[in-house]
């Protein structure tokens, strides 16, 4: 089981993302986008493609846009191929923004992006922990998980989806994660439970196969128990909630 963790141009969560995969049993490598463009065939050596969080191109022209355009120009076919195989793709935070801009998620009409991630309703960057529920158990990434407590850290995390498309997203069960309040009910847009004002409290979307997951929260930052806020006053197991997502990837190939 091999994971390719993408880096370059301001992506910055590659170390902790790779670490999370390694702990659950993957072998992995951080590969710079330019090296991948030079030699796209190396994708064949990997079963998981991970785009970590960060600030590719400083969010200029919209978060994830510039990197998505670079991938579209140079690697689009290879990555689409990858997504159509029995392999997994995950985009976290900036990676999520990149996947959405590439149109690999939700990918209902193929090609062109159908969904946008726009600025948080609060107008400011939000670094905070949120509760989310899994709304789609068919994605291998999300199997057998009910709720998660994870941090978000973004300026542009509000899913904007045209009404018709939202209907088909729901009909196809492509909403991966949704923000919930402390009564474990949907946040209904209420801040800070829904940190960005996302439509239908959406925190993640998948493609139709469920093998591509685009999520705004950071599972790799909620990996060990001591990552959890105020962990000292809680009784906890060794791993925090983010671990479950990486474990699911392992189970998929096991």
């Amino acid at each position, binding site marked *: 089981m091999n994971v390719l963790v993408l880096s370059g141009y*301001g992506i910055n969560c590659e170390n902790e993302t790779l670490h999370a995969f390694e702990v659950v049993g993957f072998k992995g490598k951080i590969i710079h986008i330019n090296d991948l463009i030079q030699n796209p065939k190396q994708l064949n050596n990997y079963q998981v493609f991970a785009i970590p969080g960060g600030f590719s191109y400083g969010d200029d022209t919209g978060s994830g846009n510039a990197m998505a355009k670079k991938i579209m120009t140079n690697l689009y076919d290879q990555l689409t191929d990858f997504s159509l195989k029995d392999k997994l793709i995950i985009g976290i935070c900036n990676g999520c923004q990149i996947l959405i801009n590439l149109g690999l998620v939700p990918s209902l009409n193929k090609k062109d992006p*159908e969904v946008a991630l*726009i600025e948080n309703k609060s107008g400011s960057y939000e670094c905070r922990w949120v509760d989310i529920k899994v709304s789609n158990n068919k994605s291998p990434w999300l199997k057998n998980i009910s709720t998660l407590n994870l941090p978000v850290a973004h300026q542009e995390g509000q899913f904007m989806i045209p009404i018709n498309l939202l209907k088909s997203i729901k009909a196809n069960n492509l909403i991966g994660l949704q923000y919930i309040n402390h009564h474990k009910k949907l946040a209904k847009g209420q801040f800070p439970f829904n940190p960005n004002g996302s439509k239908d409290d959406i925190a993640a979307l998948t493609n139709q196969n469920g093998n591509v997951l685009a999520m705004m929260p950071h599972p790799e*930052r909620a990996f060990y128990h001591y990552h959890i806020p105020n962990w000292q006053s809680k009784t906890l197991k060794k791993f925090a909630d983010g671990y479950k997502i990486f474990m699911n990837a392992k189970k998929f190939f096991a």
Partner: protein
Amino acid sequence: MTNTIQILSIEKTGKESSLQKEHNNKSIKIINGYFFSRNLDDQKFTKISKLISNDVSQTILTKKNVNKVLSSYSNFNWVVEIKFLPGVTDNIATTVKEIIKDNLKSSFKSFELGSTKIILIKGRKEDITKISKNEANPLIQTIKIYPFKKYLNNFKKNQFKIEKVKLPKKKYSKKEINLNISDHQLSLIGKLGIEENDKSRRGTLGLDLESLKAIRNYFFTIKRKPTDVEIETLAQTWSEHCKHKIFSAKIDDIHEGIFKKYIKGATEKIIQLRKDNFCVSLFTDNAGGIEFNKDWIICHKVETHNTPSALDPFGGAITGIVGVNRDCLGFGKGAKPIANTYAYYLADPNKNYQLYRQKNSKDPMLPANFIAKGIISGVRVGGNCSGIPTPQGNVYFDDRFAGKPLVFCGTVGIIPKKIKGKLSHKKKANPGDIILMAGGRVGKDGIHGATFSSEELDPNSPVSAVQIGDPITQKKMSDVIIRELRDENLYSSITDNGAGGLSSSIGEMAKESGGFIVNLEKIPLKYNGLYPWEIWVSESQERMTLAVPPKNVKKVIKRFNARGVEATIIGKFIKKEKAIVKYNKTEILNLDMEFLHEGYPKLNLKTSFPKIKKEKKKIIKKSSLIDKLHKLLSSPNIVSKEFIATQYDHEVQATSIIKPLQGEGRVFGNATAIKPLFDDEKSIALSQAAYPQYAETNPYDMAGCSIDTAYKNLIVSGANSKKIAILDNFCWCSSDEPDRLYQLKEAAKACYDYAVAYQTPFISGKDSMFNDFKGFDKTGKSVKISIPPTLLISSIGVVNKISHLTKIIPDDGDILLVLGATRNELQDSVYSKIIGYEKSKNPDVNSKNALRTYRNFEKANKLGIINSAIGIDLGGIGIAVTKMAIASKKGFTIDLKLKNKISVDQFLFSETQSRILVSLKKNKLANFKKIFKASDYTIIGKCTGSDIIEFKDNKKIMRGKISDFAKSYKQKIKGL
């Protein structure tokens, strides 16, 4: 055909809604515009538009749709067009260019473009002017206001323009400067700069008459005239910013100067006493390094960026933070930045100070809220974009920062002890090594930064002194250095290009080899037309200088280039102790290294005892205890800074282990911790403290309190007392006045005394000595505003085990205790400012008593006796108790039947130092008493777990709801 692409967000953006709210005007819309130097045909327009916009969330304006699209939002009548001034770094434009070049490959060569913010408004012209003032900074941007009709017309007629940098075409001929002139003329060179042929002046050199005379003498001995480049270089190298002349000067009877005697002296004394390997690299490098564990070193550096932040708050702050990141990259062979810290000392953002640099209300200081907001966002963008967590910081407000804000930016880095078997903190440029400049290009930005930050802010402060940060370019460069070069030992030395640019970095590094030869024409420029001296001293950001053995040069350049980073050979290091600079083969600088670095005249300073301004007696406002608590909690210096913590990514790198917001009730903590390695449970605790409010009363105690608090916060967090180091950042005012120098000497003396007492070495420091504003108020009266002397002490410590990290949340039934004695020390406290005070004194620190408390606390904590803890500082016990209750959402009963001669208010609000509020489980009290003497603590109450805090004195019971306290504590700071 068109020459502009303009993009509109369909839904209201956060920025739009905050503008609408702020100006109470619903008809505001922002357009992201790009102006091109060439016309785009329809096909290219469509293609490029698609590349830089989003189909789902944005609309692209065209000649055809512009009127219709915009009229669907409002009936706009005014337009504000904000562009960068030519030559100012435009990061968005750079990205757009890259996207276009990558996608269109060769079909769209050589073009220029500029990004523009266009604000559409319906309103009166006065309001529009106000909005534009709040949205742009004339120092770096042009602002055009024109009617909406004209905008539509511009659109139709392709009249959007991008201005290129048009520097006069100048052929360089070597310029020699005659220094055999009158003292008056000589000092004009120092104050206003070298005279150009057209009689204009280049801008301040910050050289005093004595220094210019020393330069004259040197050139008299070597029998030639100096070149302009030589004088500029000496000005940079000898600046207060680079040489710290005041700290190294003879002062009264201290011949070696206060740095050697008190700061370095303290550290040397401590090293001598400790006999361990804790201190690794001190004072000599870009940052100070200490041992983290057997394989790793951590380094820490804190810088100030005050003057740039006064002129361009966003730009000043972002370059402050990315600049100090480079100090870590330039530590030893290159440490990876793993945490940022910040501390801002600001004027009240809700006040309009109306200060002007020139008479007749000309050249205004930026509004206090503009400065505050700009600084906060600058560090946000710098830190977040670089992927470095920013967990630790604080903000303090005082009117005396109206003339100059203080912006402290710090970074912690980590590096393996050994790289390929060699000690990583040792570096040496060898003769023959190539000088390689990597990262961004050089432009006019930041010219004269080093010389002017050593001067007071007045009408002659040069505007080109502003730099714009580009964190992504730096991130790309940093990744190559840390991941692809360092661990193969491909270079022999590395340093950062900060103040003074290449003249400084190469000048410093060449000390390792002997000297250097640089060819200025090799240096890549942002645009043509820079004079050689400008290239040499430019402070354009995001550059590192490396010394690379010739055999590795090709490989190093190739690796940089493969990641989209420029790297250029610009010269070589030599053995001869000479500094030589050439421009197209003409030698324009040739100085002895010894003179370059040590030729400046040493100062001889005298101090005098200042008049102490006694705090005026203020009538105590009669109000209930609960009411007083609310007033203090909501006061700007105590109120929660959560809004900053949540916009600074403190989780990136997955190391955050004690977060800035603590407890379920999210109290803004005064220490944080990160766990930097996946395979070691050791953590790094960080804190900082400064007490400018005590400075005028007693600078010695001010410094003592700063060290005590910064140290205490780490002890309270669970750090190992033997593994704590501190950093000093002195921000002073009018440092040419004997009474200010007296305060400086006193503060430095306290630094020695307390650092030695606490065994905390100073590992790095910086000073900024002239934080004064000289100008005019709105009536034209001349005013001088000096900051209160401010000494920021940053503390960094190692926490041995995760289980040692403390928490702020007590359990129901816990006993509450205050460790350390409480005295009547209300002078200069938050209480005295808000409520009033009678007879009191300022806090001082008794290090013996303090250390007893800290050692006992550490012991008790390791034994698991302490259940929760919080350091007591601003607002005293009253605020500490309330914060603990807010954090834990658990109520207390507090017993105020006091035995000592101290009133309830004195007990609750005194800011006596060296105290900790702790809670214990009842069954631990016996063990606790085995460690603590009865006179070293006071039991003040217990945790009830209810939703109220109850204070009981002899007469009555006063109650306050925790949720109400939380509301006061979380109030928005007015003006922000």
